[in-house]
């Protein structure tokens, strides 16, 4: 059982010209077992939504609430949010030189569970998760994200999701920069995750391509920091055919 409730969320980011509002009242509920796709043009605030929920220090919440199973997410530190069951797959995963994937994964698992994983089964689990993402077992001795190809970074993010087993996964443009083979591997990873009991997914994407492999229950169109349109999977097909123009224009007219 897991429900992520975002209610009237307002977020600003500091710029040279002062605080700039990026999210202008976002309301969205991800219930048990649901996959939501968020689509929108560049700069519409899709990524900001994911990073704000995960607690990146760059963003300031100026209004609204986010709860996970009734718990106030915004009151939690970044690591407390992860412990509560949130996971963020980043568009640009960060390099951590000198820290091996194996060490990183074990440290994360230990932090989340409050105890070190059992060595024998853990090594098997890690190798299994890497293998499912077409990553060689030798991958675990490399430094986190250092020298990884774009595809390896994304597959590594999904392998982490598999191993850390969150309640709700926020996937920020997990499909960007992937060739079709890697996209399929990543999509299969997401599908294996959603098949588990009660997992929520917020899939942020610029393109409809990934939605041929990962079927969303709901599609939200994001324009200028707000949800401009909502619907079922058919909305993705419509976007594929028509693009974002009509929503962007409507938003601009609203301003006039």
């Amino acid at each position: 059982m897991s429900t992520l409730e975002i209610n009237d969320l307002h977020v600003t980011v500091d710029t040279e010209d002062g605080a700039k509002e990026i999210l202008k009242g976002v309301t969205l509920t991800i219930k048990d077992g649901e996959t939501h796709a968020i689509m929108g043009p560049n700069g519409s605030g899709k990524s900001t939504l994911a990073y704000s929920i995960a607690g990146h220090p760059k963003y300031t919440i100026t209004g609204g609430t986010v709860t996970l199973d009734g718990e106030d997410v915004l009151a939690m530190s970044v690591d407390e949010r992860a412990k509560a069951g949130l996971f963020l797959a980043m568009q640009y995963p960060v390099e951590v030189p000198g820290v091996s994937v194996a060490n990183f994964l074990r440290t994360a698992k230990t932090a989340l569970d409050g105890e070190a994983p059992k060595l024998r089964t853990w090594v098997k689990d890690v190798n299994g998760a890497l293998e499912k993402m077409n990553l060689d077992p030798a991958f675990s001795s490399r430094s986190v994200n250092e020298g990884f190809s774009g595809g390896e970074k994304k597959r590594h993010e999904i392998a982490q999701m598999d191993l850390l087993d969150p309640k709700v996964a926020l996937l920020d443009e997990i499909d960007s920069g992937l060739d079709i083979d890697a996209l399929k591997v990543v999509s299969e990873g997401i599908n294996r995750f959603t098949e588990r009991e009660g997992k929520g997914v917020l899939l942020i994407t610029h393109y409809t391509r990934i939605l041929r492999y990962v079927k969303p229950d709901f599609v939200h169109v994001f324009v200028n920091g707000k949800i401009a349109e909502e619907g079922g999977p058919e909305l993705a097909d419509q976007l594929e055919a028509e693009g974002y123009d009509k929503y962007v224009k409507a938003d601009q007219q609203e301003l006039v």
Partner: protein
Amino acid sequence: MTVTENLSAALELDKVESHLHPTGSFDLADHAIPTGREEIWRFTPLKRLRGLHTDAPLGGASFTTDIKAPEGIAVEAVATAEAKRGLSGLVPWDRIAARTWDAAARTLVVTIPKEHIADEPVYVTVDGTATSAEDEATATHVVLTAEAFSKATVVFRFTGSMTLADNVEIIVGDGAQLTVVSIDDWADDAVHVGHRHVRVGRDASFKHVDVTFGGSVVRHDTTADYAGPGGSVDMLGLYFADAGQHIEHRLFVDHTAPNTKSNVVYKGALQGEGARTVWIGNVLIRKVAEGIETYEENRNLVLTDGCHADSVPNLEIETGEIEGAGHAAAIGRFDDNQLFYLRSRGVSEKEARRLVVHGFFNDLIRHIDVPELEESLFATVEAELAKNVLAEDNA
């Protein structure tokens, strides 16, 4: 004419004026008392050198030496008058080195015989026993020779309290492989100014590992040149400056022969009010040094407010006929994105900081390739972190 001057002449090198590395001299009169404005002294807190750079007597003996050498390697402390000095080409290039040359009563002579392969490292531990800053300073000399085709590791460890000025000459014979590790693990009040010069033989490889954790002021000049083509030099450094500590490293690789290699990588962390580090790297590629390859890098991680790091890489190139030359320097704080990434996986801020710092030093420690030391170096990094980064309750 001394042996050294003969050797220098034999190399028949063009004189290259380098403001970073003035021409050396054995005559103290050639080395004026520094004012602190000179290029080579401007980063150093002269007032804290206890007169090493002026005229303070250097006859102190407040230390003990413990030596562990595997069979087949000769280690002996002899009266300096009996030692063959100057074989490395070391000519004192500043006042402290010149004074140390004159004053060193004792010379430690370590010789790895021709073709000898040592299974275990030689350990030389100098433990300072000074009871106050007024105890007379000590000058010592070391001549370390790895004869042709030998292979060995020599570890110098410095502990306790004293004021030490030392000159270390290292001669790596043709085809020899020598690793020298120097660990400044002094008590907080020690002062150590060291000059090390290595001459690397034909097709020989030399690795210098410079670890600096302790001491009030530690300043090391480490220089290398090549007696023939094909030699390779690795200089790896790891330092951790705490509140009030001054740690200064000045590196100079003089590519005096063709097809030689050098790789200089120093990494340091700073924490606490007044922690200060200086890193000056310089590589000179002479006209004769065609086909050489060189890289120098210094990275500093500033862990708290109130620290100051200087990092200046230099490259003087007299020929363009080389394989490659590069350098990099960086001074940075914890990367917010790194910490965020780790924390978004449930790792606490403290643990995330620990991981990042361990990672920062990890690559370097693994490259040292002396298994006996790896664990203790990681433990030392951990202990340093415990003082500050991990001690903050709110972290």
